[in-house]
């Protein structure tokens, strides 16, 4: 530092009756507890003699002014004598510049916060619905002229979203199938019905878990990436450039991503189903059931409608994950922090919407007896 080593450390000399004399260097290097005796000053007036200071910087002057504030709050008047002429300009500058403590910004009440959050959630919902409507209208407009879609971009996204996600999706599904089979087998074995583990695992994976796991993996992997990419483009004004050039971000940027994920999700779901069943099969084999028994049990209780149910859901989930990820990115604010916020909001919204959609599908399929 430019000050310090040449000067002696700060010391406070004096009795309670007379002024306290400050000697040495008064800078940011002063330990905070030095002021503790003065903060407990028992009288209603205190004078600090600054005439023997060897060095003073703005941080040192700020400490003296803070001391005056703190003692003033306790009804103690603090006066200073002038510092040496060489330090006078710094002291004058600090005394002139530092005003009263800035008022704290008012904290919103619980009612205000609730109202603000509800109004934001409502506006968010309207945005999302409007965005989905716009997307569907673009999709409908694309049907008679499919060549207008940016197929190369779509295929590139599909490759990144699907092929690169194969290992992680397969691994997660395999382990979930394995755990599910193991946990249920431990209990069902007590009753000698562990053969039905195959049905339990099969139905759970094919109808529910394979689809849901794939969608959650894609939410974390692709939906968040879409939010971040489009959020960064928004922050860099690339989205504005799109609009001013007469292009449509939802058609040219969002549609390829949504279509890519809508196509990729069912394919990944099939793979996840197979990996989950293999995990279950492995447990069954270790429990002494031959491979053929497991697959025979499966084929006798799981039919095409179960597989179709899962795949239908995966189409919807793929569309939803991509659309919400993109919408959150496009509605990002400005600045680097906005990209992170958009990504978080995208993932959270997606997980909530996936859970709600899955519940609705469960009720719907029950009613339709699928």
């Amino acid at each position, binding site marked *: *530092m*430019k*000050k*310090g*080593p*040449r000067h002696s450390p700060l010391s406070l000399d004096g009795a309670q009756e007379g002024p306290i004399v400050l000697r040495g260097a008064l*800078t*940011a*290097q*002063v*330990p*905070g*507890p030095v*002021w503790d005796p003065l903060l407990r000053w028992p009288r209603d007036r205190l004078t600090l003699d600054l005439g023997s200071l060897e060095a003073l*910087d*703005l*941080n040192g*002057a*700020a*400490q003296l*002014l*803070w*001391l005056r*504030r*703190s003692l003033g709050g306790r009804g103690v008047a603090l006066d200073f004598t002038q510092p040496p002429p060489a330090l006078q*300009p*710094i002291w004058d*500058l*600090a005394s002139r*510049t*530092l*005003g009263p*403590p*800035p008022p*704290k*910004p008012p904290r919103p009440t619980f009612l205000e916060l609730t109202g603000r959050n509800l109004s934001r959630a409502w506006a968010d919902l309207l945005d999302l619905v409007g965005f989905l409507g716009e997307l569907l209208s673009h999709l409908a407009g694309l049907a008679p002229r499919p060549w207008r879609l940016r197929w190369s971009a779509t295929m590139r996204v599909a490759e990144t979203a699907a092929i690169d996600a194969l290992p992680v999706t397969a691994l997660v599904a395999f382990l979930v199938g394995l755990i599910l089979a193991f946990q249920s087998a431990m209990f069902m074995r007590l009753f000698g019905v562990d053969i039905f583990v195959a049905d339990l695992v099969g139905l759970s994976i094919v109808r529910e878990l394979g689809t849901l796991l794939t969608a959650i993996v894609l939410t974390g992997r692709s939906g968040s990436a879409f939010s971040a990419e489009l959020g960064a483009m928004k922050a860099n004004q690339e989205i504005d450039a799109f609009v001013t050039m007469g292009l449509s971000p939802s058609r040219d940027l969002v549609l390829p991503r949504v279509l890519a994920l809508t196509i990729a999700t069912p394919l990944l779901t099939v793979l996840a189903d197979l990996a989950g069943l293999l995990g279950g099969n492995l447990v069954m084999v270790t429990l002494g059931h031959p491979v053929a028994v497991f697959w025979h049990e499966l084929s006798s209780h799981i039919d095409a409608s179960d597989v179709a149910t899962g795949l239908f859901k995966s189409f919807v989930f793929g569309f939803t994950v991509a659309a919400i990820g993109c919408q959150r990115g496009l509605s990002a*604010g*400005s*600045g*680097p*922090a906005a990209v992170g916020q958009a990504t978080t909001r995208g993932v959270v919204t997606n997980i909530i919407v996936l859970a709600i959609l899955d519940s609705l599908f469960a009720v719907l399929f029950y009613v339709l007896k699928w």
Partner: protein
Amino acid sequence: MVGLGACPLAVSGLEVAYPGCPPLLSDVGFRLSKGEIFGLLGPSGCGKTTLLRHLVGLERPRTGRIEFFGQDLWAADGALLDGHRRRFGVMFQGGALFGDLSLLENVALPLTEFTDLRPGAIMAAAQLKLGLVGLSGYEHYLPASLSGGMRKRAAIARALALEPGLLFLDEPSAGLDPVTSAGLDGLIVTLARNLSLSFVIVTHELDSVMAIMDRAILLDKRRGGIVASGSPMFLALESPSAEAAAFFRRGQRGGPGA
């Protein structure tokens, strides 16, 4: 021993390069006096910001010495000088304020980290620095809610938090309107004169150069180093360097470099 009289910054034989690339600038050397406002000038892409990154220890130079107040920035074993970052403050081009902290918290952060002051004293010191750069009343604002000029002033306040003897400013006037830019120039002069602060300013804004700088060096990418040095008036009118003449004439014509 560091003393008040030591030269705030002395650079000699410095070679500036990106890792794995041929040198951008070679044999860069200059010395700063206390309270001096010093400019690193040059056209876009000539390596000004890269030189600044070397000076503040973000990049390691291949050869050469950088001394702050008489102490070498890089020790013989390759380690950065202990506590060197407290010897100077840096204002980056965009301000680089922490977006989730208020201005007061941004300025208070170095004091909280590196001093033992009481929280109230830290807040008073941070408020004082903000007042010094003309941001009284904005203490609780978040950086995102301020204009570019205000963010740059707040960044200067943060750079001043530990009261270093030397401030590095990267393009302080870039993207600012003439009035705000002139206000920032005034602030730099005030700080240099009142607090005896030395400044190293990277810029290609000729108005600022002529208005506030005591001395400057002109860098050139083609020649790979310093092509001219001296006071702005000397560089503009008397320097024998063709690059200096071209740099300053282009600016006066209001051409593409201005």
